[in-house]
């Protein structure tokens, strides 16, 4: 569209064109503004609800706050931080997220490197198996792992959750990183090898730094995925559950528990939203690499 405008010969026609353009765009602007509001409204509803006293949030709609803004209070949040069950859940969520981001990134980078740059018999088979495993849904593993976890004391532990998430992150992680690493210029790798660098040295000194964009994308993807998990924590833990499964029990009395559910849900969304806002570029790149490939 920009090109079309630039190629217009006379200045006059060009400005007329852009005026016509602008008029034609008025409905588009209006429609998209409406869509934007539609998208913001539900999230705003949660945020305002989280700032209302329980009696108010249970009885009336959150938009009434615009008539009586004096009702807004941070009481729900201060109570949330006094609620040991919820602070413990937030701590567990943070621990699981960190563990289940660092481990899969490291393991996937190692495996991705081997698949990209080390020749060994059966490499293709390994790669195809990994592509196949990308499709396996979490539901396929829950019953046997529940049994194993109960026998091995991994049930209801942070480590158990980390290992489960790590394993399920590996197929996509290996796939992404292998495809990224393979794009590293061959000359660079060969030169390092001639200089006598070992495979390990090559991995840490050349491949990891060059692979940083893909590694960052994978890490952000993983932070969001693990932080936001509900099912795995719900099934494989009981007292050490992350935040979402911890709140699940409150849903039964939805209206009257809004003073607990709303602030905890909003607070638990702030972290992934921040990560997302800060590293959006990497995230979109990773998403594109993961889905378009």
């Amino acid at each position: 569209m920009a090109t079309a405008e630039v190629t217009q010969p006379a200045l006059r026609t060009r400005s007329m064109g852009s005026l016509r353009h602008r008029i034609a765009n008025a409905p588009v602007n209006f429609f998209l503004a409406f869509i934007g509001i539609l998208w913001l409204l539900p999230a705003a509803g949660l945020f305002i609800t989280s700032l209302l006293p329980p009696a108010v949030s249970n009885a009336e709609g959150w938009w009434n706050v615009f008539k009586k803004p004096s009702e807004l209070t941070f009481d729900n949040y201060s109570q949330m931080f006094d609620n040991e069950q919820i602070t413990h859940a937030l701590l567990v969520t943070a621990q699981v997220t960190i563990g289940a981001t660092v481990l899969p990134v490291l393991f996937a980078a190692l495996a991705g490197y081997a698949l990209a740059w080390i020749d060994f018999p059966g490499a293709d088979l390994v790669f195809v198996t990994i592509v196949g495993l990308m499709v396996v849904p979490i539901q396929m593993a829950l019953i046997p792992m529940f049994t194993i976890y109960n026998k091995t004391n991994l049930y209801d532990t942070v480590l158990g959750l980390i290992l489960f998430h790590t394993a399920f992150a590996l197929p996509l992680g290996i796939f992404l990183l292998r495809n990224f690493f393979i794009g590293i210029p061959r000359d660079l790798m060969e030169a390092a090898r001639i200089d006598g660098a070992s495979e390990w040295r090559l991995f840490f000194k050349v491949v990891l730094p060059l692979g940083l964009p893909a590694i960052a994308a994978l890490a952000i993807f993983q932070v969001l995925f693990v932080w936001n998990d509900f099912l795995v924590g719900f099934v494989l833990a009981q007292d050490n559950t992350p935040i979402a499964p911890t709140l699940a029990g409150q849903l039964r009395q939805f209206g009257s528990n809004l003073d607990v559910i709303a602030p905890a849900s909003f607070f638990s969304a702030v972290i992934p939203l921040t990560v997302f806002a800060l590293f959006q570029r990497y995230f979109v790149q990773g998403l594109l690499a993961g889905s378009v490939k």
Partner: protein
Amino acid sequence: MTSTSVRAEFPDPVRTPPAPPDRSRLRSFTLPMSFLAPAAILLGVWLLYPAVATVVRAFFDDRGEKFVWFENFDRMFSDPVIHTAIKNNVIWILVAPVAVTSLGLLFAVLIERIAWASALKIVLFMPLAISLFAVGVIWRIMYRDDPSQGALNAGLKVAHDSFSQEGVLPAARPSSDALTDRFVFTRQLSPGDTALMGLTAISESAVPAGAVQAADPESKSGAITGVVWRDFSPGGGEPGVVESGELGIPGVTVNLLRGSDTVQSATTENNGSFEFTGVSGSGYQTQIASKTFAQPYKGVNWLGESLITPSIIIAFLWTSVGFAMVVIGAGLSAIPRDVLEAARTDGGSEFQIFRRVTIPLLMPVLTVVFVTQMIGVLKIFDLIYAIAPGSVQNDATTLAFEMWKRSFSGQNKFGFGAAIAAFLMLLFLPYLIYQVRSQRKNA
């Protein structure tokens, strides 16, 4: 560490190393294994083993002790709730991917035409970062039934009330036999007559603002007069008689009927009185217009059994359309400008170009978005758990949800649950084969 890498010693551009000595052959196995080992162990124990074990488990009873052949699958396919789950899965697969992809395409195309595109992109993309559980909470707040609590029904109420207003007295009843059930004054009236139209079952707060002591109507020649009032005073009072302390009801529409025709209409004053002037002949009746008693708008029952699945799908669209828009937008910007220019020079209209050039060029991206959504939709659990109230869980359910419910919600029917999981995996199989094939082609 000293390098024994084969290629370091023979730096030729061909990747296949020359026949290595024995020690190297061993190393050509141990070296990649040391890189692959952590991933291999985790994938073996947490993915490969349980995937196989789940299929095996599907052929054992719920306690895992007895081999029962296909009994679990029999149970599954004769279970009415599983039928609902399959029906819902079909609805999800038919509706959600198409809706996400087409809305994503629409937004991706339109957003290029506005100056604030990047701000809107963030707004539309943002929900993807929020957990589906929190998304469920967000939408459950939106979907609350009472229009005074749920934002969606509040919006619908505004739209509804601009067409038909809520009556001033939705709950009122006749106070005596003088009025019929349809609020018609039973006595036939002639000019000079009065109509006492008493109502009860009106709470004090429901009396319209401005109401004052009801007026006992006076007879007027050539006119029919009357009063509509709250026929109740503290202590009871006598039904059908206007007494001190009883309030007139303002703003009520009263119709004057002759036979089945409405001849005149009047609105009551603050003291409840009304008057029809210029009336001649006889055989009139008065009636309080039905709109006085119109029920308030109750709102759509979003979380009821019939709408629950569409409601959850709407919440899903909220989280997913941004993703589709961004991926499709990247595809759009990858279309070479000169291709579009050439089409324009050839005299194609914008719509023709969109249909015949843009869409075909975008097809690979659209397919990826569509397939990703189809796969994602089959796994959805959190949204259903968070949005559907317990009473409609069986109406909102899907296979992924039933897999959890039968196995882990305290039911412990692990054989049943494994059968559902195995069936679910069967649905993923075409995608798995497609993925492996397309990767083989690439490699």
